[in-house]
């Protein structure tokens, strides 16, 4: 039997989840651990792709868990917990990348490629192309296509206008397409294109 999830498929938090958030806001550590475990895997995947390094992603997640517990009383709407904690994670990743830039350290794409579900040349090429994107574009691609957030939710997470998110997504897709075409991994003919 699989684990019982409190989050519904459309990512709207259930009543039980919101109650646990309220308990965690009052200081219940057990409740906090439970709600954080619901979103942990998603946060870890996001951090892995943005930081291109599993151990950095793990450290980031540890810091995010503590910061989320400290600041949880500031969350006004329990149903936005996942969006709120994702924002903390993105800010943490940004800080780590800024620090890394000072030390001229680059991520380890080989470590990340081991965790790809499909080790096809296209998957590896996609991961490499995503790693070559700048932080703003990489973030929107990861949130949109890896974690499945809508454009509105991404705008809320990154605290940006919706128009900015739309233009970033379009620009990021254009760059990715150009990169994959350059690698020879993408060039669909009319016959290969999917039906509407």
């Amino acid at each position, binding site marked *: 039997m699989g684990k019982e999830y409190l989050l519904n498929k459309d990512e709207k938090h259930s009543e039980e989840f919101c109650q646990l958030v309220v308990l965690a806001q009052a200081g219940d550590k057990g409740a906090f651990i439970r709600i954080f475990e619901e979103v942990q895997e998603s946060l870890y995947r996001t951090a892995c792709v943005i930081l291109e390094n599993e151990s950095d992603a793990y450290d980031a997640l540890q810091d995010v868990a503590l910061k989320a517990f400290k600041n949880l009383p500031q969350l006004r709407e329990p149903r936005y917990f996942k969006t709120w904690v994702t924002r903390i994670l993105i800010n943490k990743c940004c800080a780590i990348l800024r620090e890394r830039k000072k030390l001229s350290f680059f991520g380890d794409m080989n470590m990340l490629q081991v965790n790809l579900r499909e080790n096809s040349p296209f998957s590896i090429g996609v991961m490499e192309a995503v790693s070559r994107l700048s932080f703003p574009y990489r973030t929107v691609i990861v949130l949109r296509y890896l974690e499945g957030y809508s454009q509105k939710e991404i705008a809320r997470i990154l605290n940006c206008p919706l128009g900015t998110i739309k233009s970033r997504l379009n620009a990021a897709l254009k760059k990715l397409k150009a990169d994959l075409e350059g690698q020879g991994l993408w060039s669909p003919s009319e016959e290969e294109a*999917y039906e*509407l």
Partner: protein
Amino acid sequence: MNCKKARKFFESYISGDLNGPLADRFEDHLRHCVHCQRALKKERAFILNLKQGLVLKSPKFYPSFSWDRVQTFQGRKGFKKVAPSFALLVALCLGILLLLSPLSLDLIRGINSGNIENGSSEIVMKDAGFPNNPPSEEGLNYRIAFY
């Protein structure tokens, strides 16, 4: 709506985020534009492949995530724990204010003047460094007033 504008909405339309009058105008343009129809098919195919390429397995560190820092966190104290120290602080501030208030200063001055009248002039004179021969009564009163 022209082709240049329509292509900006491809991503929103594919992900289902395009609705209302804008969606109607977009679909109207698609009906009449073969180029945009082909371009939309390619874009949809690309996004589908991108999603498939970005799928990761469950991370290795995941099962051993440590909750120690959260479990040992003491920082966020409730009102019941903060109240005694807060009350002590308030009492201390009130005590200082009371000491420095004009009423208490008058009281202190009053006590001092009462002691001199009761004959502790010798102490005052010794503290002031007077010689063994004390001055006349007039001089003493002058010095007491000064102090």
